[in-house]
């Protein structure tokens, strides 16, 4: 019956990318009535103030749990205090919150962007080694994500760490492609005209990589495992597999969007009165052209 259901209010960022859509879908398919939940879903259209409104509304609706995928990391004290005053536990998903008082949320579930960046650096080092270019001077450009987004910050930071470890790697330029294909292309076009000798392009999401690849081809160069320029990207959306199969993209580093089941698990534990870990990373892998991409792609949920 209606009363037995656990009510969960989920304040989602929006639907700004395929990743986000998959993330939303994962929650919607997990928190169903069959599974004993009533999900109140709110889409914030990428605006923090909307999320704050939504949380306030959840409090009024007396939900049992509030799950937030914060638009940004900062500025949540007041409204989380309100939730705490009403005695509603808050679970964070995807992005972290930057709070003075960590007790305001119960736990966090998400990917590790910095780790993704580091993995990328490690992969590149291994790949170059394998190609016999381990000692060569390597010119790198980065097409960053939307400046300020946690994915952008984490991935830039993670890769920078690895960059520092290799003296022969040189970061020529960084410019934001705002996580879109069109901007990625425009930025890459500009890079190609400013620098003749680019060896590696790091794109902070897949869509930027698609644009960069087009720009590279238009400039009469080639990319991918058999080409002049190495292109790597993050997220591992389905389309990225197409691109790798076509031999344009070298590798993509996963950012797992399937947080729903994990959050459900946590809620079950909390219902049973158990303690939960404060920080919970979801598993993330990477894919490159050496793998059986078609098989993997067929299995993936997004």
């Amino acid at each position, binding site marked *: 019956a209606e009363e037995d259901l656990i009510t969960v209010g989920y304040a989602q960022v929006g639907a700004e*990318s*395929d990743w986000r859509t998959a993330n939303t879908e994962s929650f919607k398919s997990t928190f169903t009535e069959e599974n004993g939940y009533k999900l109140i879903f709110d889409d914030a259209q990428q605006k923090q103030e909307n999320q704050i409104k939504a949380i306030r509304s959840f409090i009024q609706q007396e939900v049992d749990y509030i799950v937030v995928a914060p638009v940004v990391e900062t500025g949540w004290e007041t409204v989380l205090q309100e939730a705490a005053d009403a005695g509603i536990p808050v679970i964070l998903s995807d992005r972290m919150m930057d709070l003075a008082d960590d007790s305001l949320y119960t736990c966090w579930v998400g990917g590790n962007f910095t780790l993704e960046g580091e993995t990328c650096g490690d992969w590149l080092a291994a790949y170059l080694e394998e190609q016999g270019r381990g000692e060569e001077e390597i010119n790198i450009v980065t097409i960053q994500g939307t400046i*300020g987004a946690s994915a952008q910050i984490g991935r830039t930071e993670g890769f920078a760490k690895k960059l520092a470890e290799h003296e022969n790697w040189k970061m020529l330029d960084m*410019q*934001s492609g705002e996580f879109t*294909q*069109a901007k990625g292309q*425009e930025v890459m076009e500009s890079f190609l005209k*400013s620098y003749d000798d680019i060896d590696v392009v790091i794109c902070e999401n897949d869509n930027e990589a698609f644009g960069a690849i087009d720009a590279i081809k238009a400039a009469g160069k080639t990319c991918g495992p058999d080409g002049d320029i190495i292109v790597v990207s993050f997220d591992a959306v389905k389309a990225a597999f*197409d691109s790798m199969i076509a031999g344009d993209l070298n590798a993509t580093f996963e950012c797992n969007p399937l947080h729903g089941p994990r959050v459900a698990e946590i809620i079950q534990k909390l219902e049973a009165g158990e303690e939960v870990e404060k920080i919970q990373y979801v598993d993330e892998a990477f894919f490159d052209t050496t793998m059986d991409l078609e098989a993997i792609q067929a299995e993936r949920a997004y």
Partner: protein
Amino acid sequence: MENIKKLTSKRLFMPLFCLAVMLIAAVIASPDFFKIGIQNGVLYGRIIDVINRGSEVVILAVGMTLVVSASAGTDISVGAVMAVVAAVACAFTAGGQQSVNEYIRNPLLGALLAILVGILCGCFNGFLVAKLKIQPMVATLILFTAGRGIAQLLTNGQITYVRVDSYKMLGSSIPGVPVPTSIFVTVLMVVLTMLLLKKTAMGMYIEAVGINSKAARLVGLKSTMIIFLVYAFSGFCASIAGLINSSRIYSADANNIGLNLELDAILAVALGGNSLAGGKFSLLGSVIGAYTIQTLTTTLYAGSVSSDQIPVYKAIVVVIIVSLQSPELGKLMRRLKAKFSAGAGKGAVS
């Protein structure tokens, strides 16, 4: 001297002058700005990028100019309409799948359908503005808000890819033709619109309605119809721009196609020396304005300005350009000068 005066008093002088200054700045920022080469059988170079990338803004600005002229308002929905159009085109040709490597349905039909939808969006705006007399910005705010939602609805919230070479042609180039297709389309749109305005009475009608719709009605113009048509046309322009943009990325990215392009289009109209209060307009001015903006953006990219700081430079350049175009600046200068020279003498009366 006489000649210079005559030249500077021409309507298009200031916009052209500003474009020229921008181009010079561009050359200083990247010396190979005007270098044109051939790459893969297609023209290649920064200046080509400017012209190519500027296509969408130019086409939007064409429609926007007429909207501004006839209704003294702006159509802020064009960016969102572009997204809708792209979504229709992709969702139709991909047959609802998320990514296809060949057409599921006829691409021409898809393009036609998409254009039709774009025009319909324009008609919706036109109906609200012309018939219901809702203020343009507010009327178009509705599609501005809904447009990307509709686009996502059509593509199920995901970016839909049509990875077929012929789909990419509009945004890149047709094999064997060295000029990017979008440049052709842009020229065609501008020329056709010009002809429409100059060879029929439409240009005069639009201006008359924009300047004084009451008087225009009394001399037998159907103000309502004209305003309606102008919005429909703006929808048409948005749909062409949407198709180009979608073809560039061979996909429909509901969240990003045409994002903030409405602002650039409006800016282009203003930089072209047109008044946003309606009435007299110069289509060429808007086109020049659009290329000015694109030159600025490309130059800033070339100068490695971080993209989130680009707006600061853009703002400064815009303010300088529009100030230069303001006749008030001249008056103010003259007054200051007079004050200065009189200051020593009697003490000016202010």
